[in-house]
């Protein structure tokens, strides 16, 4: 536990020093800018969309950025011969990542509350954002394990976005209205992520919300196990196979 706290605070410190946190805040301010320039007063339906994009994409990018920095600087090697558990290492990164997502969420929500109209359950939004960011941080780990550099990792992320994120967004904004496609989308984790965020505005069928929660929790547990297990292969690779 002590190692986790050290690793977590170390992650936050490095995110600050390497301007990763600043990049996160910059993106959050961009979203605030989008909200500022929009004519719509009630942005209840827009905020879940923004949080959805941030919690999915930024989570993957930030994991990749911090891990590739560690690879590039060789620090991963020295961390691997330190008295830390692999769960501690993985969780410290994820929680640091979630902190950045939460900061973005708070910035957007505060702006919306002060200058626009918003009717979302903040704590529901917070919980959903954490769960989605946790899951997508794990996706970020898988991508980092399987790519040689940050550019390749970004390409992987783009593929994920095209396959899993864009169809859900198109369906959410009403561009896709086909019922069969809508049903098929339930297979992918981004659909559950979207449902969960929309549910914070109310009016969502209970079964859909519960489905999304259970889906994401189970998927997160399963993925965490894979990330944990595959860490050994990553260790071999990073120690200079």
């Amino acid at each position, binding site marked *: 536990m002590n190692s986790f706290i050290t690793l977590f605070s170390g992650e936050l410190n490095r995110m600050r020093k390497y301007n990763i946190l600043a990049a996160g805040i910059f993106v959050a301010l961009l979203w605030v800018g989008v909200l500022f320039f929009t004519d719509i007063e009630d942005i209840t339906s827009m905020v879940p969309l923004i949080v959805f994009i941030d919690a999915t994409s930024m989570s993957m990018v930030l994991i990749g950025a911090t891990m590739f920095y560690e690879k590039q*600087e060789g620090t991963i090697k020295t961390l691997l*011969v330190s008295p830390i558990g692999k769960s501690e290492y993985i969780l410290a990164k994820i929680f640091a990542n979630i902190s950045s997502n939460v900061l973005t969420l708070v910035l957007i929500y505060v702006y919306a509350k002060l200058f626009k109209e918003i009717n979302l359950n903040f704590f529901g939004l917070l919980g959903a954002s954490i769960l989605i960011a946790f899951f997508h941080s794990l996706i970020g780990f898988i991508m980092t394990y399987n790519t040689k550099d940050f550019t390749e990792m970004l390409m992987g992320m783009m593929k994920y976005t095209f396959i899993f994120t864009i169809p859900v967004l198109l369906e959410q904004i009403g561009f896709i209205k086909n019922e069969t496609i809508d049903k098929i989308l339930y297979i992918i984790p981004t659909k559950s992520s979207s449902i969960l965020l929309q549910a914070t505005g109310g009016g969502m069928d209970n079964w859909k919300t519960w489905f999304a929660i259970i889906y994401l929790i189970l998927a997160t547990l399963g993925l965490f196990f894979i990330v944990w297990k595959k860490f050994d292969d990553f260790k071999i690779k990073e120690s200079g196979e």
Partner: protein
Amino acid sequence: MYQINNLTFKYPKNKENTIRGISFQIQDGEIFGLLGPSGVGKSTTQKILTKLLDRYEGQILYKDKDLKSYNKSYYEEIGVGFEMPVHFSKLTAEENVNFFKKLYKTNLDTDSLLKKVGLYEDKDKKVGEYSKGMKVRLNFVRAMLNEPKILFLDEPTNGLDPHNARIIKEIIKEYKEKGGTVLLTTHLMNDVDELCNRVAFMANGKIVEIDTPKNLKLKYGERKVEVEYREGEGIKKESFDLDALKDDEKFIEIIKNKEILTIHSKEMTLDDIFIKVTGVSTDE
């Protein structure tokens, strides 16, 4: 401290074994040199001993217990010094050291160590602004900061000027005198000669020679003495059998009557032994 029996290892993507059934031991309080050209399995052996690789065959006992039975607490007992930089470049040296210190239960007085290696004055500089030699010294501090019982060092003086290399070697000697054990990997045979109690030469994943540097020199060297002396206007060189020296009249006559320029026993250097037993030069 370590007993390695019939250790074999193959990387998942390789067809052939990188380590091929090696056996040796590292005794408590010794500096053990693991030597050989690149790619013969030295680093792999070190990675296995530092638990970075665990899918090996054979047996490794650390303090009479199977190495595989140790968990992360094993890292409280070891320090690993890497050849390449392993620090966060946008953090200062002190921030790096403090971060890694917090991961351990036991800590060394790092300020004193930073002073010894000549980095104390620059501890507030970002590591990215450090020279190669400074990074090498900081790596050494990183390896020592948990007061390890065993130190794994990979080329600890590579890239250092003679003055700083001397400081690092003195610290290693002090560490050994206090009971520390060292596994040293280096291409610099002078360092090996000066520091190591025993050395193992590796070639093709196997240990081809293991002994003290002195015994190896005796084993591979010629028991001869070569004398260079002035003879009239010229210089002459003669070689004598070391074991029959006291009865060798010619040798005694030269010593008594000639101006000696140089006199050397013909023992082999570790460089020569390296080339002889591994089949390649130390630069490779």
